[in-house]
């Protein structure tokens, strides 16, 4: 009873400044919904503009948090944290969302879809992603994941009358809910397992979990919980044995939504995955002596196997695809594998500095992937025309000389996805592979490089098809709407800038004082 009274008189640990970006995006989502309800049918572009303005405001708030950074901090009793993992990922999500708005602006009009609903769902999905990066407690991570997932299920099935879109949405929904249930069961077991021998009840706070690992009352439950969470997150970021849903879902969903799903929710999955595993089950010195050491070496070695499988299966399956969206889906699986290499390096790092460098490498990798992936999908969307009808490789025959601008931009993005020097993809790969080498994972790097060589086949194949294959049917270059042109300019500039002058961005991602979560 005493502790209950004491709790009542403690002022709640509220800090609106710390969740300002999330708040802004949520409010914008609601505003977009209200504006859409009262707007006239020919004023649909308004909601897109409001969303863009909101995303800019969210980015401004994030940068403000970044500039006023004085060490990691937390609010809402550890539910929300501000640390080295959060800000970089938040900016990636905002960029992804802004590019989605740009490439979908004309598309929603042409397909006669409700623009306001699309944009508000997108805003809520973005808010969910941001919560996944900022949550310091398994409750918030789960809530963020569900806000994101439920909005994305609807977005995948947004072309309601199209059977492919329905199917994509259904498959995403069933497997997404299944993976959420696994994640949740893992959380429940971890909550039970972290009760200490000293009599403290279980906890769902990530930093607190890390502190209690060695006093855990039920170590087997802890292992089971970690395994369940690994499966749940594995589904979300589409690692190899859990990737089967990805190609179907990505192929069937409308192209702008596919671009969003490949970049945004995947990055958010990585943010939450790293939060739980790198910070919750951190490196421990005596590997086989303590519970935390055993747990750490167990999850790192499982991830090594998953990363190898993901890279290999993604690339080999991509070779045999004849549908461009499906090929890019497998390519996104392969890229998740490369990012996992950086994740493993972050998990295996013994020093805080190395760990942060590896986290920066993963963030940078996902940023470059988002930029080049959006560029590629923007071109694919233009070529696919209304209803996503032309997405086969044959539809790209000989368009290189009919529409050099489009073909050259797509080639640039494909070369960047492949990881050619002077493009963003190259620097991203170098960073994650270097982080893995520093931790002594030579085998992972070798397999990663071999896989890059395999991937050359299917990326270059599309370029060859565009420039050196005769076209028998007539083909008119699609008109490029202004919003897509802006998106293409941004992504081309991004690929070249991140490829030629990556130093500034990497430094910005890294230039934060080093504070560990577990020491706070």
């Amino acid at each position: 009873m005493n502790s209950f009274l004491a709790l009542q008189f403690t002022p709640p640990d509220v800090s609106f400044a710390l969740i300002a970006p999330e708040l802004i995006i949520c409010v914008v989502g609601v505003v977009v919904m209200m504006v859409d309800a009262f707007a006239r049918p020919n004023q649909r572009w308004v909601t897109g503009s409001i969303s863009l303005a909101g995303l800019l405001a969210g980015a401004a708030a994030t940068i403000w948090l970044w500039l006023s950074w004085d060490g990691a901090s937390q609010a809402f009793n550890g539910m929300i944290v501000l640390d080295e993992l959060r800000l970089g990922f938040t900016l990636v999500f905002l960029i992804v969302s802004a590019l989605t708005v740009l490439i979908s602006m004309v598309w929603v009009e042409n397909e006669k879809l409700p623009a306001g609903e699309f944009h508000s769902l997108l805003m809520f999905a973005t808010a969910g992603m941001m919560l996944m990066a900022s949550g310091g407690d398994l409750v918030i991570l789960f809530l963020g994941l569900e806000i994101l997932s439920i909005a994305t299920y609807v977005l995948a099935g947004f072309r309601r009358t199209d059977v492919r879109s329905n199917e994509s949405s259904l498959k995403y929904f069933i497997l997404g809910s299944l993976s959420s249930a696994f994640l949740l069961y893992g959380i429940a077991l971890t909550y039970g397992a972290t009760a200490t021998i000293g009599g403290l009840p279980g906890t769902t706070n990530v930093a607190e979990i890390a502190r209690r690992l060695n006093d855990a009352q039920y170590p087997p439950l802890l292992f089971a919980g970690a395994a369940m969470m690994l499966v749940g997150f594995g589904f979300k970021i589409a690692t190899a044995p859990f990737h089967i849903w990805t190609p179907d879902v990505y192929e069937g969903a409308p192209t702008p939504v596919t671009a969003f799903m490949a970049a945004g929710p995947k990055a958010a999955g990585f943010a939450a995955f790293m939060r739980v595993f790198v910070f919750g089950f951190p490196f421990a010195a005596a590997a086989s002596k303590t519970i935390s050491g055993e747990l750490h070496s167990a999850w790192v070695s499982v991830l090594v196997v998953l990363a190898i499988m993901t890279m290999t299966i993604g690339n080999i399956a991509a070779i045999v695809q004849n549908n461009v969206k499906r090929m890019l889906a497998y390519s996104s699986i392969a890229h998740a594998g490369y990012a996992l290499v950086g994740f493993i390096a972050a998990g295996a790092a013994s020093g805080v500095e190395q760990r942060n460098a590896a986290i920066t490498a993963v963030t940078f990798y996902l940023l470059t992937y988002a930029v080049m992936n959006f560029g590629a999908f923007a071109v694919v969307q233009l070529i696919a025309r209304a209803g996503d009808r032309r997405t086969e490789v044959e539809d790209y025959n000989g368009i290189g000389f009919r529409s050099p601008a489009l073909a050259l931009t797509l080639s640039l993005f494909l070369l960047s996805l492949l990881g050619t020097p002077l493009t963003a993809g190259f620097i991203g790969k170098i960073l994650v592979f270097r982080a893995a080498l520093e931790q002594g994972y030579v085998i992972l790097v070798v397999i990663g490089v071999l896989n890059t060589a395999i991937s050359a086949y299917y990326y270059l194949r599309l370029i060859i098809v565009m420039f050196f294959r005769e076209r028998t049917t007539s083909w008119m270059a699609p008109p490029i709407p202004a919003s897509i042109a802006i998106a293409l300019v941004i992504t081309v500039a991004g690929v070249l800038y991140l490829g030629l002058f990556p130093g500034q961005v990497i430094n910005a991602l890294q230039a934060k004082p080093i504070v560990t979560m577990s020491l706070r």
Partner: protein
Amino acid sequence: MGPQLSWYLALSAILFTIGVVGVIIRRNVIAMFMCIELMLNAVNLTFVAFSSFFQDVTGQLFVFIVMTVAAAEAAVGLGIIIAIFRNRESLDVDEASVMKL
């Protein structure tokens, strides 16, 4: 001897397994959907069991959040099912194969 914590955990593990198996082997979307709900409720049982055993309220709060999320998921899931039924008049997942693996 009253009910032990391990009994509840075993029951929820069994329920969860039934749910997983159901999602994998059932071919009707509604049945799969119900199996997912079963999995979520197995999780809720785990949380409540731990919560009551520890005399701690965190687990029960988590249950409320899970229930809310499950309700939202049910609304969206049934919406998707209705959309697919309108276009195809069938709820058999084996027929949902326009795109091949």
